[in-house]
């Protein structure tokens, strides 16, 4: 499960040896994130976001467990219990703001982590399973975040729950019964709130489980790297500890400066004022949007304003939105180029930076904007490009693109010198 030149775990104390025979947890840590895990020596800062996302998941779980100590999952008092947390509980405001902004920071980390994978081809063989598990984590995180946003039972909570469960209504024939099944009623109410709370508490632990598989799968081939070239020998790697523990630690400190800055000085900047109004089933907020991390998908949902053949617009939008993420499951087989890193793919690089990234940014802006022109038209164009990128451009590029010459090894790319054979 590791390179043959990995440093070997040797317990230094008698207790360490005793433990190593009974429960080799020290060995596990040593070989996974310690000195026993050789890692490419040329990882750039884009490789910091995996561990960062992990840390923010821990922040969410810790603050979430605490919030659950004070929150009441009952439609009659949920809103008041959140105000109770904000006003009465010692440091409750801080813990809730940490949780609310922690969700955003988790998604920032996860998006940059996904973007890193897309650009450097980390999804390609032999790392397909890591990528697939990552998509599963992302889907679970979206479900968790959505249900968490419902819990304060403000106006955005209520109408978010109504709109998102309304997506299922678009399914022909069984849509309506499915929506009622999900909600335990005809509109979001106590039954929905309780099950969302239960699942919101459960899913992060499921995510943690899938993350363990994600890392397990990662440790078989080891990390990809900015050149995309395989590790060829010991000179291409450094031990994870202390090199990347230190780098991840320093980067975490940097991220926490932004996180706490956000938490203490602009805690509601990413939220919606409407959610400080108690849920009212009889009045929809004028401008209803999800949290920012859902905006691109929300734009794709709203882009479909027209029926196509016998498929109604509503169903088209829902299908497109889910497909936009599900297409990632096929990515390792859509992009057949044997070159992983975008650094050595001149055309791919252009399509990535001037096609896909602006397209997602435009979708994000449109998703957060009111459903009116020019945003509808922009969403339609960007949605079309989004699917074209994955379904047409990537498969075509892998056939016609002529990649730049790859370095012979990571070391050669780093030092600029050909690998010395005698070492």
């Amino acid at each position, binding site marked *: 499960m590791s390179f043959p*030149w990995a440093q070997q775990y040797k317990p230094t104390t008698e207790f360490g040896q005793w433990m190593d025979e009974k429960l080799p947890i020290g060995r596990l840590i040593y070989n996974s994130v310690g000195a026993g895990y050789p890692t490419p*020596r040329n990882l750039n800062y884009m490789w910091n976001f995996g561990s960062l996302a992990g840390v923010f998941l821990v922040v969410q779980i810790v603050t979430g467990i605490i919030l659950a*100590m004070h929150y009441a999952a009952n439609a009659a008092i949920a809103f008041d219990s959140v105000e109770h947390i904000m*006003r009465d*509980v010692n*440091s409750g405001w801080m813990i809730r703001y940490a949780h609310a902004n922690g969700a955003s920071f988790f998604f920032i980390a996860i998006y940059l982590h996904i973007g890193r994978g897309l650009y450097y081809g980390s999804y390609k063989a032999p790392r397909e399973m890591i990528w697939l598990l990552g998509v599963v984590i992302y889907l679970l995180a979206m479900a968790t975040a959505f249900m968490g946003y419902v819990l304060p039972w403000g106006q955005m909570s209520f109408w978010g729950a109504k709109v998102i469960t309304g997506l299922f209504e678009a399914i022909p024939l069984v849509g309506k019964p499915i929506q009622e099944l999900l909600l335990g009623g005809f509109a979001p109410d106590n039954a929905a709130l309780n099950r969302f709370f239960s699942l919101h508490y459960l899913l992060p632990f499921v995510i943690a489980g899938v993350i363990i598989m994600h890392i397990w799968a990662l440790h078989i081939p080891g990390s990809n790297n900015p050149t995309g070239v395989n590790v060829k020998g010991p000179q291409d790697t450094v031990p994870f500890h202390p090199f990347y523990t230190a780098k991840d630690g320093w980067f975490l400190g940097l991220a926490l400066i932004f996180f706490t800055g956000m938490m203490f000085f602009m805690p509601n900047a990413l939220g919606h004022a409407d959610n400080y109004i108690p849920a009212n089933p009889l009045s929809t907020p004028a401008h209803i949007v999800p949290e920012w991390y859902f905006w691109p998908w929300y734009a794709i949902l709203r882009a479909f304003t027209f029926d196509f053949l016998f498929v109604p617009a509503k169903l088209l939008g829902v299908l497109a939105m889910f497909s936009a993420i599900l297409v990632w499951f096929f990515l390792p087989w859509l992009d057949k180029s044997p070159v992983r890193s975008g650094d050595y793919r001149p055309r791919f690089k252009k399509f990535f930076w001037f096609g896909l990234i602006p397209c997602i940014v435009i979708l994000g802006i449109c998703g957060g904007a009111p459903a009116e022109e020019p945003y509808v038209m922009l969403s339609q164009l960007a949605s079309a490009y989004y699917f074209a990128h994955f379904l047409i451009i990537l498969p075509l590029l892998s056939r016609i693109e002529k990649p730049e010459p790859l370095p012979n090894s990571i070391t050669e790319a780093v030092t600029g010198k050909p690998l010395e054979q005698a070492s």
Partner: protein
Amino acid sequence: MASVDTAVEPSDSAVSEPEIGGVRRRDFINIAAVSFGGVGVVATVFPLVNQMNPSADVLALSSIEVDISAIEPGQAIKSSWRKQPIFIRNLTTSEIEAANAVDLSGLRDPESLADRTQPGKENWLITLGVCTHLGCVPLGAAQGEVKGEYDGYFCPCHGSHYDTAGRTRKGPAPTNLEVPEYSFLSDTVVKIG
């Protein structure tokens, strides 16, 4: 292949710097960084634990006012203070005499009735209705309840007997029934807490 040296050459002169008295500059950086991180961890953990302390709304209910005008001598009422029962008892003259007649040196928790009441209001015995053994509510406040061998309170859980001054006399209770902080706002209203 397996015997290749994996050590990476240090690019920082601080690493290869010779040790002075067994201490390198890097050691200082290590200790400083870890210490600073430790301070951060403590600062983070404190509010995460402190949140479990009573919240502002709980503390806001920490004092109550009780009208005692209807309690005749020989009667007692139960009230609730900080979610705990509180006994307010109007002692009869004979109960006061019985409490004062006890030799303090023979008590497990020596306190006179005067210690446990306010001057001029010796007939008002105000205690928590919480047995000092393991927290059950003793009997004897309501009419018809068993008052125990010393005519005060009796805890049915593990058989602790309290006398007319609410002092532990028999059974496992280690101390007398707790007297909360209270003051008479007037002759008929007492503020507890």
